[in-house]
Structures are given as C-alpha cells and as structure tokens.
C-alpha cells in the first residue's frame, strides 16, 4: 500500500509537485502518466524519499518519514529510468546488491540472501548468464537484470520509472508482462511512470495523469485516456481508439507546421488550449509532432 497526502516537492524556486494526495491499495498497479516535466519522476523520487518533500507518505501503513534507509529499502524497490550498470560487475553480484538492506551492518550475505538472489535470477530466466559481466548483456537482458535486483529486495512496493523506455516493442511487452506476472505472484503494489499511453492503459489497473505537478485526472484507462484530456495535457492531437479486445489505443496525429502539406489538420489544433500556457496559445502545439518519448 502506498499513500501520500499534501505531497509537495520544491526544486529551488520551482514547485514540482503541488500538494497532491492519492492512495494506492495493496496489489494495485497505478500507472503515472503525463508530459515531460509533469512531475512523474519527482513523485516516484518523493515516495522513495530520494528528494526532500513536505506532506506525508505512508508505505504499508508506516510513515515513510520516520523510517531509516534500511527499513525503507525493505519496503520499496526502485527501478530507476537509467540504472547505473557497472560494466565489470557480474549479473549475480548486481542482483545481490538488492539484498543490501537485508544484510546486517557489519555482516556479509548469508545463504538465504544468495538463495533469494538465485531465485530472482531464475525467475527472470537469467540463470545461464548469472556469471556474465553486465557489459556483455543486451538491452532487454539488462532490463531483466535490473528487475531481478528489485525482486531480490523482497519489498512489497515496486516503483518503476519508465521501465521500458530503452526497449524495442517486443522486449517492452515482455518486460511489462513479466512485471505483471510477478506482481500477481507476490501481490506487489506497483507504481510506474510510463510514457507509452497505450501500454499504460493495457497494464495498469488505474491511471494517474499528472500535469504541472498536479493531478489532472485519475481513473481507469477508459476514463483518463480521452482525446480532449490528452490533447490538453500533452499538447498533441491524438486519436483514442478502442480495439475489439477492449484495449484503448492512443495514436498520435501528425501535426506539422502550417504550410507543410498537412493543412487539413490545422483546424484541429485550434481546439486545444492549455490554460496554463495560454500566452503560447495554439501555436505552441504546432511545433510538436507527437508526444515526446
């Protein structure tokens, strides 16, 4: 379970999160969506206590502000957007880092720690490569290695910051399916920032749309992924389609500069007006071809 209320994060004079509140029940996957700079990563960092914040955060009914780093790391496993992957570290040693918070201060890893790591490596089909150096792994394999480290942490809450941004389409699906399976196996609470709106709708139980550090919408994919909402907050025209399997597909419309041959779409642009950026007006959107990835 993750709860936060009145969560505010300031970077100098800039306020990245404006006192937002939300509750993620145990076992739920909450997908956090929003344009670049909307506060997705900041929200994850605040929950993991990696940035100073005001307001309160509760993890599994315990106030995060009173927990030590070790206690926090046993409750939250964090997969960053661009993990640091020491090239000369083996897969096994890297996954073992996930046990850091379980190993006593002056102690070394126990047989239990090694067994948990071996199980995480096995679960992600990495056993054959356990002694390989990270430099010898492909992008998809590295993604699994990072997830294995998070599983070895044995925390009930999993925070994922754009877990699939570096992967191709197939690997991206694999990784998300895997996270979903593991979530069900271990009834993890998952909170992930995710750029791909279609995937966000397919995998998350619920979506939270951030805009300018505030919650613009929450709800099911059907409720949040609406053409007008997305156009407003992403500054790009989209088509939202419902597939015959019931999935929501978000497709960006090409929106090019006036006079570039796509005149017919210009009329659409004028419908979208972002109240926060009124001075920029509709022209602002004319520079955007599609939501940034």
């Amino acid at each position, binding site marked *: 379970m993750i709860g936060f209320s009145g969560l505010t994060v300031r*970077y100098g004079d800039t306020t990245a999160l404006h006192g937002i509140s939300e509750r993620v029940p145990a076992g739920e996957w909450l997908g956090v969506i929003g344009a670049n700079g909307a506060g997705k990563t900041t929200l994850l960092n605040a929950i993991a206590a990696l940035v100073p914040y005001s307001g309160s955060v509760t993890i599994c009914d315990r106030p995060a502000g009173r927990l030590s780093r070790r206690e*926090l*790391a*046993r409750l939250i496993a964090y997969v960053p957007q661009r993990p*640091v992957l020491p090239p000369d570290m*083996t897969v096994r*040693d890297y996954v073992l880092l996930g046990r850091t918070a379980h190993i006593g201060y002056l102690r070394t*890893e126990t047989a239990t720690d090694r067994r948990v790591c*071996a199980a995480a490596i096995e679960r992600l089909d990495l056993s054959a490569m356990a002694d390989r150096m990270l430099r010898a792994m492909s992008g998809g394999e590295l993604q699994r290695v990072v997830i294995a480290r998070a599983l070895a942490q044995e925390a009930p809450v999993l925070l994922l910051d754009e877990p699939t941004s570096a992967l191709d389409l197939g690997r991206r699906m694999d990784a998300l399916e895997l996270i979903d399976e593991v979530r069900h196996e271990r009834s993890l609470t998952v909170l992930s920032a995710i750029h791909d709106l279609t995937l966000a709708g397919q995998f998350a139980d619920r979506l939270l749309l951030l805009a300018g550090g505030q919650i613009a919408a929450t709800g099911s994919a059907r409720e949040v992924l609406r053409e007008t909402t997305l156009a407003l907050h992403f500054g790009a025209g989209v088509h939202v389609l419902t597939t015959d399997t019931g999935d929501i597909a978000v497709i960006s419309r090409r929106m090019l500069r006036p006079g570039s041959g796509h005149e017919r779409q210009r009329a659409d642009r004028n419908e979208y007006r972002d109240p926060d950026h009124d001075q920029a007006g509709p022209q602002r959107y004319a520079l955007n071809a599609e939501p940034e990835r």
Partner: protein
Amino acid sequence: MTSTRNVAGSASAAGPVAAESADAGADDAVGRIRTGRPILLASLVLVAAMVIGVAVGPVGLSPLQILDALVARLPWHPHVFVPALDAAIVWQIRLPRVLLGVLVGSMLAGGGAAYQGVFRNPLADPYLLGVAAGAGLGATVVAVSGGSLALTPPAAFAGAVIAVTMTYLLGARAGSAGESPATRSGTGSILLAGIAVAAMLTAFQTYLQQEHTQTLSIVYSWILGGLSAATWSDVWMILPYVVVAAIGLLIHRRFLDVLRVGETEATSLGVNVARVRLIVVVAATLGVAAAVAVSGLIGFVGIIVPHAIRLTAGPSYRVLLPVSMIGGAAFLVLADVVARTAQAPSEVPIGVITALTGAPFFLFVLRSRRARQDLS
C-alpha cells in the same frame, strides 16, 4: 546452475587470481564472492617481500640467519647462536624499516582504493582531499620555526587532518543545496573543495619556504619521502592509527560495492551514503595522514596499486580493499629495497622507484588485460 558453470564464468571474468579461488571452492555455495584465495596469494607475496627486505642490504643475510635472529628474541626460545651484528642489523635497522614500509604501503594503497570507491573516481589518490598539502605545510612550519625534527610527524599529521576536515566541511556544505541525493550529499563539491584547499595550503607552504630558504633542503627531502629514518618508535606511533583505519575501511568495503551503482541507487538500496562516506573518509584520512607523517609524500603507490589489483583480482571492493592493502605493503617494501641498494651507499628517493617501477608494471597489466578482453 551447476558449480562447473560457475567456475567457468568467474574464470573468464575475474582474472587469474579469482579464477583460482573459484576453482578451490567450486562446491561451495553458489555465488559467494571468494576473497580467501587472492588474500592468501597477496599475503605470501608480502611475506616474501618482507624476507627480502630484511635480507638484502650492505650485509646480506640468509633467511635462516633472519629466522635465528627473530627466534632469539622469543621467550623460551631454543638456543640459537646469533652474532650480535646480525641481531642488530635485523632488529635495529632492517625490521623497523620493513615494518614501517608495510604500514605505510598498506595505508597508501588501501586509502587510495577507498577514496576511489567512495568518490567513484578512478583518478582518486590518497592525497586527494588535501592530505599532502596539509602535511607538507605542517612539516614546513616545523622546519622554518626551527623546531625539533621529532615534531615533524605530529605537525604533518595535524596538518593533514586539518586540511581534510576543511575540505570536507566546505565541500559538504557547498553541496547541501543540491536537489538530487547525489548532488546534495556533495561528492563533487568535496572533490572541488579538496583542490581549492590543497592549492591554498600549498601556496602558503611555498611562501613560507621562500621566506626561509635555509630550510629548503630539509623540507624538500621530507616532501620527497622515504623510509630511511625508520625507527621502532615510528612503527609504534602510527600502528594504532593504521589498525583503526584498516578495520574501519575493511568493515565498510561491502558498501563500496553498493556505491558502484551510484549514490542515488545506493540510497534506494538502503545505504546511508553520507554516513558511509564520512566513516570511510575519516578512516582513510587517519591512516594516510599517519603514513605521511613518518614517511613524507611517497607518490604513486595509492593510485597504481589499487588499479593493478583491480585488473588482476577483479573490481569488487571486498577483494580489492584487503588485497590492495597487502599488495601496497609488499610493493613499498620491495621499492624500498631497490631505493637503498640501487646506488648504495646513497639512497634513491623511494618515490622515484615507485613511479619508475610502478608505471611500466601498470602499463603491462593494462595491456595484457586489454589483450585478453579483445580475444574473449
């Protein structure tokens, strides 16, 4: 996962030393980082270096003669005949010098490895945070004020500790306004503060020295460094610092491995980065300052030894830190043997030897390692 695979994997990955250790414990629990074999090998090298250090000199001694001289000092020892001259050479001249080399070498190399780990900077050396400049200023103050030479070690030690304290306080405060844990904890600003503090203290030291040119040779020879003045009292004086520093560093080596993924991730994995860094810096600084106080500024050991060990025994600090300490000790003892015999009866500055022998060796290791990687 079978143990056979494990052996093959570690062998190709971690170099010859680790490969042998994997061989030895292949039926052991899967995935344990094996530190025993590299430490044992390094210790054998150190013992050999110490025997050579005591044996070689104007009067050559055989290992047996050394053993006799040592045994003769034991309580309830068997009766052995030891010429008084041999006993004096071993006990009064060579043994304190070799032991001081062991202590100094272990601290320079161990401190270098620790700084490299905690600042995640391969170019970090033990003098990084102002130890050298502070110690140099302390020694210069004693020399120009005409103080007794016996005051030099405490003054150098104090200068080094004060310099690092200044660096740390200035750097950590400058960094405290940062936004991410990495910038907030101030690693980058501590390194920059170290450069500034070192420059300032060196300027002050140069000024003092120019004002008192008659002490130039005293200061210069201290800065060059060496073990020629080694006595038992030096050994006893720095031993407590070395022991405390070694324990402090060794019990935190696991955290240095976690820090390899960066400060933010180490934090999210449950490490209190600021605290670990403070403890490691304090321990390394005490050890290095004590070493510098009795031996001056011996360069190159602190950067070359950890890298040579890293290239042969692998990058895990659990192996790297202890093996660097042992290897640094052996390296400095051997370098000292060369320093006092190459141009006997005069001595070559030991820093010249460490650089002249260390650099080609390091390049050789670097080359062979590269070659092996290219092949694999």
